[in-house]
């Protein structure tokens, strides 16, 4: 398959200086992206899944030429982003930081036409393209209203529209559904799938595992600046087939009691989330044994006089893959 984006051993280190009076300045090194290599093929949706702070945005910014890698090479359609930044940028439409990336004091149309000009479109071209995109994103009615008054979902759409102005073959979407209500998120995902059908190559970052699973042809899981797994979503889930996932909802217990579950043989990971509203603990348990352990777990909980409200044995999700690999949850 033809490659749209090639990422070769890319690193990004940030240096922060700590200055104090009468002391030597200390330079601290932070590895935001720490040796990443992968290819994205033409026409696919490639998902980059990882928790907050994993290095997703930093990686996207390096691909767009906003940030210089400390080491490594990035090619977009064969063009070296560092050496020929402007040429590479012509092939990329990017959505970063969603609703804040557009001008709130301009109308939706003015925003699109402005960025059209910066993407090198002639006036007439920019006007026509803006009209077409507004139509397509369902913004026609509000096209000439000031963005300030739009909902987050609509602002996000304008930001996406801006990225579509150049009609570039590669789209980079950084957390495109962040902060959207469920319905808008579903809408946006539909739109993203349409782009794929048109043949665009899409790199999408997210910390929602359902989103990565639903949209992506392939998913790379990133944690602490490193890619820890990369495959088709199904393959990733299959890869932990021997690991079983059990979800419990428990009332009247404590974190300490639940921690005790880790002592049970064949239990691999225990993750707990306290649900404030329901006043219950939601516990995810990974274990390597099918039947007998369910008994053992329930026994343990009941002995501690806790009340079990719900038991589910589930198919593994991408989140489980992440938990299996890192021992922590995606949402932290």
């Amino acid at each position, binding site marked *: 398959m033809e490659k749209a984006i090639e990422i070769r051993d890319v690193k990004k280190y*940030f*240096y922060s200086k700590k200055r104090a009076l009468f002391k030597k300045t200390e330079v601290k090194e932070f590895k935001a992206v720490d040796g990443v290599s992968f290819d994205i093929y033409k026409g696919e949706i490639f998902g980059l899944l990882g928790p907050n702070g994993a290095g997703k945005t*930093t990686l996207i*910014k390096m691909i*767009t*030429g*906003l*940030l*210089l890698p400390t080491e490594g090479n990035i090619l977009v359609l064969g063009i070296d982003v560092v050496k020929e930044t*402007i*040429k590479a*940028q*012509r092939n*990329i439409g*990017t959505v*970063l*930081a969603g609703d*804040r*990336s*557009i*001008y*709130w*004091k*301009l109308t939706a149309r*003015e925003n699109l036409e*402005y*960025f059209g*000009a*910066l*993407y*090198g479109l*002639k006036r007439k071209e920019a006007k026509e393209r803006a009209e077409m995109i507004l139509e397509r994103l369902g913004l026609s009615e509000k096209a000439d209203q*000031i963005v300030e008054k739009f909902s987050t979902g609509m602002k996000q759409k304008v930001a996406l529209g*801006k990225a579509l102005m*150049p009609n570039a073959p590669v789209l980079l979407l950084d957390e495109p559904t962040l902060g959207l209500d469920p319905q808008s998120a579903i809408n946006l995902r539909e739109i993203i799938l349409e782009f794929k059908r048109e043949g665009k190559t899409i790199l999408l970052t997210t910390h929602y595992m359902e989103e990565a699973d639903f949209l992506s042809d392939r998913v790379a899981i990133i944690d602490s600046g490193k890619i820890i797994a990369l495959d088709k979503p199904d393959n990733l889930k299959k890869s932990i087939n021997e690991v079983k996932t059990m979800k419990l909802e428990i009332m009247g217990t404590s974190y300490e009691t639940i921690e005790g579950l880790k002592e049970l043989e064949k239990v691999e990971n225990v993750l707990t989330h306290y649900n404030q509203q329901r006043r219950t603990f939601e516990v995810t348990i990974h274990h390597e044994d099918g039947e007998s352990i369910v008994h053992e777990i329930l026994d343990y909980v009941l002995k501690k006089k806790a009340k079990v409200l719900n038991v589910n044995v589930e198919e593994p999700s991408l989140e489980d893959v992440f938990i299996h690999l890192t021992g922590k949850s995606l949402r932290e």
Partner: protein
Amino acid sequence: MQSLRVIFAVAKKDIATLFRYPTWFISVIIWPLIFPLLYILTSFAYAGPDRRGLTVFQRVAGTENIMGYIIIGTMVWMAVNITMWNYGGYLREEQLRGTLESNWLCPVNKFSILLGAGILSMVLSIMFSLVGIIEYRLIYGIKFTGNLFEWIIVFLILFPGVYGLGMIFASLILWAKEVNAAVNVARGIMMILCGITYPIYIMPNWMQFLAKFLPFTFGIQAARDILIMDKTLVETVYNLILCLGEGVIFLVLGMFIFKSVEKRVKISGSLERF
């Protein structure tokens, strides 16, 4: 060509935004009136009840038209000041808003964005000056000398210095957000050095020396020569050339500093909001 389109698009966007929220218009009318008043009234107070002291100032300044003298100084200063505030803070403002990265993602030479960013400040400066001149004539009864062509020349020789200064500030403030304080100090120092309400030769020698590195010092002098002292362009050619020459150096310096800041933020990643 592409650069021109970018410069124009940036300016158009800024101007559209400004005109959408027209409260600023009040300041265009009020500020040119108020700003010189402080100095004019102060000078009257120092001159004594019968204004006898003014003759001393007239001798020092080389003109009878003390009000005109002060007004030209404050007018040029206002243009410089608007540029430092607006243009100087431009990139930082885009950064705080979150739109700076969107611009940087675009396949254009980022310097054209900076060039476009200065246009609004220039338009505002011209508006302040024009409104000022009309008001001074009608309300203060100042008689201006020279013709339109000469006035335009004065404006043109001031242009590169003002633009360059804006670029320098815009770049520096983007690079080190905390230099804001330093920028304020610089502003104050410049205000004193370039002699907006007095001739610079009343300052100590070392201050005069520093003043000669500012194009505005000569620009203000040239503006006074043309607009109130009825001199010809040839008679003030020394000031014109120095103002223009130093202004061009400011421009080149601005471009240079911008390029280096552009490179730095790519390494440190400080284009984003904080």
